[in-house]
């Protein structure tokens, strides 16, 4: 929806496009204007949202103990690339035990993964036979261990995950016949030759321009990875949607940098040599992963960093690699941040004023105008269902002001100030629930202009009816 027109820019200053959109306004916009894709996205996303329950305390405990495996088949994920599914916070600190458990299991099964599973991990490129073998192995391990232990739980999860993966490979071979390519979990659809986009497109693999007329190009329907037809075979980046669907959690340490030497002076993604001596291939640091990338894998895109928001209330956009950007874009609307747990101080002192009023507002909307407001809220279903989970987008919105699209403008004074029912010094009309400044209201004989207007219209209509 946004931020996909920034190319591999040489300097940070030239990256013009802002990746942050103002939230609720956009929702409304999508819903009312969207045709085709947008609406479909919203629809599919909401389906997921509506079916995902509020997380209560009990289930919180259980969820916390088990790694968030979300059964996602390609069908699911195809429908809802931006779907939200509130899974509990899985920051490294809180479930280290389970994480260790899972890592141990991965080891036993011969599978390893890190945050953006690197290409050398064969988990994703596994053939059906290997998957089947892993499933059998997993089943054996389950039988060997005792009931109701963390290990068993993690194993069952792994099993479900593997089975879904297997189904995915099955499906992949089926869909492949329709011209869609599958590489590294991407679903690459051929782009039609006359590209309708006005902005230039760059190849995510070789970082060169895709000339719509000359080049055959593909785009991943899940994460918008796009590349030349000739680059398809060399794709090294795994589809961001896999990570998002299977384990939606952020790196919540601020820029966990390890240093270029720890990476052997190689790009974290494509393993090309990067040194400070070579001006053509300078190392670029990704603020999200803390790793260094080559200019082809890091286009100086800018994103808001979840870790910085949570710990420092810092909304400045930082430079991130392409893979981090694709991941963050998909994660943006997911309520995966358990604020109270991650940063209770923030919740107490800063957010209490900002968020609670917003929530209260949304809450009143729900009871007052169930039918209409709820629909506009659909992308934020988690708001009305549970009090602690936030998506990064929510935090961004709080910072940039509550959704302005749903505010009111006092009809009595001509000020352009946007007011909300929860603001101080306002009154809410009991008849039509419009919001007016308290001062304006009392000074104009306590009459609501909107009610009066509606009354007049009703009269007009009734006389019209009488005439006809």
């Amino acid at each position, binding site marked *: 929806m946004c931020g996909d027109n920034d190319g591999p820019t040489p300097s940070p200053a030239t990256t013009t496009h802002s990746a942050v959109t103002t939230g609720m306004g956009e929702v409304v916009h999508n819903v009312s204007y969207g045709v085709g894709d947008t609406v479909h996205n919203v629809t599919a996303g909401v389906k997921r949202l509506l079916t995902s329950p509020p997380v209560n305390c009990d289930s919180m405990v259980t*969820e916390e103990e088990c790694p968030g495996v979300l059964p996602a088949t390609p069908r699911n994920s195809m429908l809802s690339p931006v779907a939200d599914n509130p*899974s509990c916070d899985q920051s490294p600190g809180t479930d280290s035990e389970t994480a260790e458990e899972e890592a141990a299991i991965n080891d036993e099964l011969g599978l390893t993964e890190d945050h953006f599973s690197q290409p050398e991990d064969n988990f994703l490129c596994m053939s059906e036979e290997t998957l089947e073998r892993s499933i059998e192995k997993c089943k054996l391990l389950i039988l060997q261990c005792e009931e109701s232990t963390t290990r068993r739980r993690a194993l069952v999860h792994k099993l479900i995950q593997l089975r879904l993966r297997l189904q995915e490979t099955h499906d992949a071979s089926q869909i492949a016949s329709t011209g869609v390519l599958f590489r590294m979990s991407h679903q690459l659809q051929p782009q039609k030759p006359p590209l309708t986009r006005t902005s230039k497109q760059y190849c995510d693999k070789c970082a060169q321009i895709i000339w719509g007329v000359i080049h055959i190009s593909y785009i991943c329907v899940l994460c918008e990875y796009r590349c030349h037809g000739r680059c398809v075979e060399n794709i090294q980046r795994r589809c961001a949607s896999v990570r998002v669907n299977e384990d939606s959690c952020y790196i919540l340490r601020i820029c966990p940098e390890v240093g270029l030497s720890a990476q052997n002076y190689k790009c974290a993604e494509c393993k090309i040599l990067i040194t400070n001596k070579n001006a053509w291939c300078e190392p670029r640091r990704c603020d999200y992963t803390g790793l260094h990338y080559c200019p082809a894998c890091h286009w100086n895109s800018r994103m808001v960093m979840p870790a910085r928001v949570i710990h420092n209330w810092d909304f400045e956009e930082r430079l991130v690699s392409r893979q981090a950007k694709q991941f963050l874009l998909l994660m943006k609307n997911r309520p995966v941040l358990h604020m109270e747990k991650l940063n209770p101080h923030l919740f107490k002192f800063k957010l209490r004023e900002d968020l609670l009023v917003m929530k209260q507002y949304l809450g009143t909307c729900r009871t007052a105008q169930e039918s209409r407001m709820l629909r506009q809220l659909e992308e934020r279903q988690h708001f009305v269902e549970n009090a602690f989970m936030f998506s990064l987008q929510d935090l961004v919105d709080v910072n940039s002001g509550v959704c302005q699209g749903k505010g009111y403008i006092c009809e009595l004074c001509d000020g352009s100030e946007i007011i909300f029912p929860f603001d101080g010094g306002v009154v809410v009309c009991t008849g039509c629930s419009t919001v007016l400044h308290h001062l304006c209201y009392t000074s104009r004989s306590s009459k609501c202009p909107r009610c009066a207007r509606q009354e007049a219209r009703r009269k007009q209509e009734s006389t019209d009816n009488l005439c006809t």
Partner: protein
Amino acid sequence: MASRKKILLKVIILGDSGVGKTSLMNQFVNKKFSNQYKATIGADFLTKEVMVDDRLVTMQIWDTAGQERFQSLGVAFYRGADCCVLCYDVTSPNSFKSLDSWRDEFLIQASPRDPDHFPFVVLGNKIDLENRAVSTKRAQQWCHSKNEVPYFETSAKEAINVELAFQTIARNALAQESEVELYNEFPDQIKLTNDNKAKQDACSC
């Protein structure tokens, strides 16, 4: 993206171990039955495409291990389910009694939007056996008390009622799915063209 709209229904089969969950699923999907008992480990699923009122839907039927307690499958497993099938064995009163706890646990774990109207289907399996212990009436009463849950008596071995039961499951799951979609319709549209004008002009007074 939008053009390829496939409907995927997630169906979860629950019930005590040995009531025939795997057999029912196998009978429906593969039309096969085996007398040999083999406990399911963890969870497994099969998919089948079915036609429901001239709509092609893919059913993803999750078979769970009866011994596996709920927590081990985790919230994520239950989430997004479109229908829940509760199975019991008509020759085992205990498996019938535990329907209550399976249902409650499911509702806790999946916490669907509208728990009272979430589509459940109850299957009383093994009606081909002679030593029946749970009467039809008793089962129907239970289903009645749980907000008119559809009830079927099946036999995975003889393939009695299996097709019918899964058709109902698919239909109910689809209904649940489309109900969810209702929320996604456009909000009230404001039409900018004014139809009233013509009306007013036509007014003869």
